[in-house]
């Protein structure tokens, strides 16, 4: 299992370089659409390690096809130049009736499956590489449909899942989606996320995917209990931290992850299709 860290904004550039230099991480996950104005060649030389791509705002369930084609045209030079281990995106609602949802909404998995299937198929074809889609940290009850939704999407479209372990723990804690329901998805995918979560400010307390805290004990327990499902040839797990960024705290969590998934030798960048 390779450990990675998410690089979303330039503010953390020096810190990520230090994580690499001290061998705390094996790769960097780029929030790639934040860097569309950075030349691909500069981005390719930015880090001396493999990279993964995470897309934040393609909004591929909402944007029209021409907008998505243009987005993909701009992304492909980065795929060619950086040869990421994977390309991933979000399955969520970024707007509703034209209004921006700052806290993105959970997809309606059963009602909108046909649309999701069509759009995921289109988006994967435009990207020209296997598309991984991340699961959502459910708060409301529609989340119980998630595992079946993703299994069906994998089977019928051929996309993969960027499985976020702590999002699944949130969904379990919030609405009781059994963690076992994810086992087939974990077993059939190689690229994972994990982060800390916090509790809502008011009762009834729900788990919120905030990326600003240490890994929770139940997240650690979940990863440990399914170590053999997660850990496989070419597997990666990205530790996400976007708030309360403190080097020592991040390293402490990376050490916890390394204890579960002992270090393996990093290999050269691999084609996305080979590992996704």
């Amino acid at each position: 299992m390779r450990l990675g860290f998410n690089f979303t904004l330039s503010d953390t550039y020096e810190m990520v370089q230090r994580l690499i230099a001290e061998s705390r991480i094996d790769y960097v996950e780029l929030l790639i659409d934040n860097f569309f104005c950075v030349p691909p060649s500069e981005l390719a030389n930015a880090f001396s390690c493999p990279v993964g791509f995470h897309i934040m705002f393609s909004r591929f369930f909402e944007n029209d096809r021409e907008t998505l084609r243009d987005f993909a045209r701009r992304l492909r030079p980065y795929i060619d130049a950086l040869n990421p281990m994977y390309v991933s995106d979000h399955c969520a609602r970024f707007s509703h009736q034209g209004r921006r949802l700052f806290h993105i909404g959970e997809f309606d998995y059963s009602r909108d499956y046909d649309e999701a299937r069509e759009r995921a198929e289109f988006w994967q074809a435009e990207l020209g590489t296997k598309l991984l889609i991340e699961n959502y940290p459910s708060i409301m009850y529609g989340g119980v449909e998630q595992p079946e939704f993703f299994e069906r999407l994998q089977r019928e479209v051929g996309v993969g899942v960027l499985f976020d372990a702590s999002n699944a723990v949130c969904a379990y804690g919030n609405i009781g989606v059994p963690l076992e329901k994810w086992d087939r998805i974990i077993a059939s995918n190689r690229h994972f996320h994990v982060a800390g979560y916090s509790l809502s400010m008011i009762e009834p307390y729900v788990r919120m995917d905030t990326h600003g805290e240490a890994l929770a004990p139940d997240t650690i327990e979940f990863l440990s209990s399914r170590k053999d499902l997660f850990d496989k040839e070419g597997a990666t797990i990205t530790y996400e931290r976007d708030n309360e960024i403190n080097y020592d705290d991040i390293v402490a969590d990376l050490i916890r992850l390394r204890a579960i998934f002992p270090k393996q030798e990093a290999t050269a960048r691999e084609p996305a299709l080979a590992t996704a």
Partner: protein
Amino acid sequence: MSQLSQPLEQDGGLKDSALYDALTRPARIFDYPTDSRAFVRIDASIRIYWHHLFDICPQLLEMSPPDGGAIFRPFMAWADARGLTLDWNWYLWVYDWLLQSEFRDRLNEKVLLEIMGAAAARWAVLDRGRNCGVVIGCRDTANLVVGWKCHKIDEGRQIEMLEIEDLPPPPELFGCFFLPDFELSTFPGWQSLSK
């Protein structure tokens, strides 16, 4: 494994999609019992709008102590009635609303430039189009605010304040134009603020 926070009767198995309408409308939170999961979910959503406004524009919070409610709630209701999209330019619409509110006499250029800077920064972070920069002008100041997207790996977005003497003021309260590269060398004319 830790205990579940058990679903409450009041939630009735609601999906997130049933709450989309309420996620941008603070007043709608009271459609749900205060001890329901739906209430918490909407509260989490509304808090993010609040933080985006007052964390980025702290002078607005100073104008409406202790919690900004005198600005936030009426503005969001006004935004809803006007059909605003709450996109990057929503900060500028806040200023428009402030001019029509009890706070109009407390506005000054410092507050205005903070608001224009917030809008430029939001554009630079969120926009996924091909433009590299946005220029925002306002009738109430000779200063322009420019937002540039991140174009170097170790430098984030950049916000600049400029004064260009031979540029006409926008014909409306605010105007903007977009820059196709990282140079401010042409003036294509002011665009109206979109909703």
